[in-house]
């Protein structure tokens, strides 16, 4: 069983390592990653591929919406919900 904090840390670490190129940029949990341009469309593809592999999940096409992927908090909640269903 993975708890919410671990999920959030995994998501944060991946975004931090792969998309934050400026060391002065602070990663805020409820900030829109797509809105402020931290992640672009190719980045989304990369993030989704990583999360599916890391958590052994398959995301349906109808789940690939900003509502589930726009902030670290939303991604965490979405993953938690998917993992709970398993």
């Amino acid at each position, binding site marked *: 069983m993975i708890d919410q904090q671990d999920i959030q840390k995994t998501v944060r670490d991946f975004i931090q390592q792969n998309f934050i190129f400026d060391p002065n940029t602070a990663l805020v949990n409820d900030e829109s990653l797509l809105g402020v*341009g931290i992640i672009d469309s*190719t980045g*989304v*593809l990369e993030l*989704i*591929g990583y999360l599916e592999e890391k958590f052994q999940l398959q995301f349906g096409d109808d789940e690939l*919406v*900003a*509502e589930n992927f726009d902030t670290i908090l939303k991604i965490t909640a979405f993953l938690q919900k998917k993992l709970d269903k398993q």
Partner: protein
Amino acid sequence: MNDPMNWLKLDTKQTVEKIIKTIHHQVRTILRKKGVIIAVSGGIDSSVCAALCTKALGKENILALSLPERDSSSDSIRLAQQIAGALGVKLQIVDIAPILKGARCYELQLEAIRRVFPEYGEDWKHKISLPSILENDRLNLSFLTVQSPDGESKSSRIPLQAYHQLIAATNLKQRTRKMTEYLFADQLNYAVCGTPNRLEYDQGFFVKLGDGSADFKPIAHLYKTQVFQLAEALVIPEEIRKRTPTTDTFSLPQTQEEFYFSLPYGQMDLCLYGFNHNIPSAEVARAANLTSEQVERIFKDIEKKRRATIALHLPPLLIDVVDEINDIIQSTVRLSKEV
């Protein structure tokens, strides 16, 4: 705000006059070239550019190129012949497939597609598309669609590595075309005309060192709807004017809408115009027959695409500015607009 019917309406006579004067000035005085090379795809943008260049410099100083490859639409050459014939300009057809084959373009393409669909055969067809932006707040994720020779088609989200490889292979097509255009330009001491419209230029729908490269771009300031107005004024053949804009990059027919803009160009034009002129989303929604929520989403997408594609517009970045060259560039750009 003025009537939405007038937002994109051009005085076509005045616009054509201004563009042809500027082309003449830019090609002859600024670039000091004898004529123009223009690749004609059979689409409306390159046809309008070819007509404008012909009016500016005379048909004897234009060389149109048709540059098909293995995945090009069968209409491309015929429509290129049609526009060249209508304008009375010379047309040279160069099949770029052997160059692409030598550069492993088709091999890379096949390998990338087979990562998603291992059963994909060499006689199958494919395209990349985006879901519609209107349905929900969907992520800009590309889908790969393949079609077997018996017409059965399947779609799947494309993983990152396969996506990068497929895009790299298809970008090579645009770059090979541009390389070929410059081969002729160098031989003839001609300038190369770039053919993007404003939607493509603004939203970064072009390949760096591919269709993004040119010596001048005479319609990059015009919305697609305005290009259609010019096409009518310039009497571009009806078949070309009525044709759905396509990318002509993948083997399956694919509109620009499903590959990049996610919205028909008429609505996209109104949204981009509204965004550029700070028109409230409710007003743009009424004009474009969309909801305010959809327009807000499109406004965000416009900004996102601008940010994501800015590197395509940038010249190579230097560590320090070389002022002497920078000054000449800036004064030349200023002069190029002073007709």
